[in-house]
């Protein structure tokens, strides 16, 4: 591998990692603060992609579609939290796992009823619908660069909120000791609703901006879910910083693992997870 292709692979790894971060950030927030293992996280990524596919067809504009789809995603999170999760907080984790597993089935079936079994696409939107020449024979879609930029910007915003706002302090405190936060007079119920809606919206948004780069197909969220759990476990549950570096590590490992050790490509992320857990059982940044 010469330097040019090594650099392109670095770019590939970074881009994949940043997208993974965006998907995993919602998962780690919900997991860390609410203690809920949201198995339906991948299904929400899929719903985001399908929403933007559908709305782009209806409205004729990708950017407009995203503007409409985001409130829908937030509302979806709100409804699920208030109607279903709210009744289960007092119960054991297993009930929540069962509920969110059920949600996968319901959301997948809803997808099939509404949008059918065919594969769809979203056209890469203007003004990013062109490519730049990277090497002598390879081009790179500018939209991929744009997605990287969006992911980085969002990572910055999330980091700022968590580090430098009152809400961030509550979130960080909640991740460490939920009962104490409640004892200090914070309305945890409202906090939970907020966190869950934002978490769902982040994932769905990842599905939306990734839509032009992927194919929109039934079950597209199922495989991404497992990768996201690996990211969250490596980074440390509840840690946004951990999710960021975990995602970058997994993005790079997937990219370079595929090329350098193809026989282990499907295993490499799990090997990394096992190694991290051996050294730091609570993850890198927990």
């Amino acid at each position: 591998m010469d330097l040019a292709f090594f650099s392109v692979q670095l770019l590939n790894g970074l881009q994949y990692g940043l997208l993974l971060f965006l998907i995993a950030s919602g998962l780690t927030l919900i997991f860390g603060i609410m203690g809920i293992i949201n198995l339906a996280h991948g299904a929400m990524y899929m719903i985001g992609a399908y929403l933007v596919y559908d709305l782009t067809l209806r409205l004729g504009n990708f950017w407009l579609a995203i503007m409409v789809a985001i409130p829908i995603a937030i509302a979806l999170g709100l409804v699920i939290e208030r109607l279903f999760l709210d009744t289960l907080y007092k119960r054991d984790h297993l009930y929540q796992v069962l509920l969110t597993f059920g949600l996968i089935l319901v959301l997948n079936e809803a997808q099939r009823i509404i949008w059918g079994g065919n594969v769809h696409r979203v056209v890469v939107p203007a003004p990013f619908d062109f490519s730049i020449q990277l090497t002598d024979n390879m081009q790179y879609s500018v939209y991929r660069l744009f997605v990287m930029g969006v992911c980085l910007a969002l990572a910055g915003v999330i980091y700022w909120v968590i580090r430098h706002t009152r809400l961030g302090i509550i979130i960080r405190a909640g991740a460490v000791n939920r009962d104490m936060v409640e004892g200090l007079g914070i309305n945890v119920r409202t906090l939970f609703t907020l966190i869950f809606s934002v978490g769902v919206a982040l994932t769905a948004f990842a599905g939306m901006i990734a839509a032009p780069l992927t194919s929109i197909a039934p079950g597209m969220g199922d495989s991404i879910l497992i990768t996201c759990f690996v990211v969250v476990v490596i980074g440390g549950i509840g840690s946004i910083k951990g999710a960021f570096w975990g995602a970058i590590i997994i993005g790079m490992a997937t990219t370079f693992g595929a090329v350098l050790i193809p026989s282990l490509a499907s295993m490499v992320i799990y090997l990394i997870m096992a190694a991290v857990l051996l050294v730091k059982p609570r993850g890198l940044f927990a």
Partner: protein
Amino acid sequence: MKTFKKTSLAALMGTSALISASVMANDGPVKLGLMLPYSGTYTALGEAITNGLKLAIEQEGNQLGGREVEYVQLDSEADPSKAPQNMSRLVNGDQVDFVIGPVHSGVAMGMLRVAKQTGAITIIPNAGLGAATNELCMPNVFRTSFSMWQDSYPMGKVAYDQGHRKIVTITWDYAGGKEDLAGFEEAFTAEGGEIVQQILVPFPSTEFQSYLTQIASLKPDAVYTFFAGGGGVSFVRDYAAAGLKESMPLLGSGFLTEGNLAALGDAGEGVMTTLHYAETLENDANQSFVSAYENAYGEMPDTYAVQGYDTGMMLVQALNVLGGDTSDKERLINVLANVELASPRGPLSFSDSHHPIQNIYLREIRDGKHEVVSIASENLEVPDEACQM
């Protein structure tokens, strides 16, 4: 005396029950058990096969050999672990006359086990695993679809004849993908071509960027690939977006693009694939099939619909020959094996291993359609050397 009476009465009743059962079997409806995916990733395939099958039987007035038809539809969920249990339910519970399925090769493995135990007549309308008509072949199992080898083997010679000498092959790391690549590689290297590298992507990942970068650095003359469904769409679109299509033509098995032309858009233009069907084939059977299918379902048929349709046509022909009499299983199997169809895909007959003998077409996507360039291999028979029955 009393005992004798009782026994003879019982015997009499037994016999009459037997007679009425066999009369029932031939007078009642023909029961077709459909074991296809109606949920999950392969939903579209299951539905297309069902549509095609029902269309063929509808054209016969919803009858097979003069008998009414009853469908028992079971969602296979494309889940191999549920396959034996589902198949048993159809055969032993619903007592179907024919089992039609599956789409997924993993499910086929489970079904074949039950087919072996029960002798249930099984027609495979999709699953392309070679073993089903080779190592695992049995008299009561037929295939109306293809095997991975059959669709990819002809592309080897085509690629060589187009002047390609060094080729990279890429697929998912699973049995179906590897069988497909093996067919292509066998033919391509036999011609004198070289496989620069075989790339196996973890299934079902659709994150292709690093592999495309690798391909760009290897600089082969062309790339041969097998992906299907959403993965196929992603690969073709990523390949085009990476600007590789111009310098290295993309070749593939027809499943790369089948059923997904709309989702491919411009990225699909110029992609060449080999398959046993193309919707643009100009024969009478295809033209009337395409218009009938469009009328009935409001969309263009794809190869899966044709496979379902031919399954239906096979049953129509066989049961017409038998006058609807399915009681003699040996005869039924014999008649099925000798079915010859003027299918939408061209002439279709069956080999000794019950595998289709059919044309494989070279197709190129032009203006969003699979245009037929040539017949890549005429009346191709799959060797199935390990099959003994």
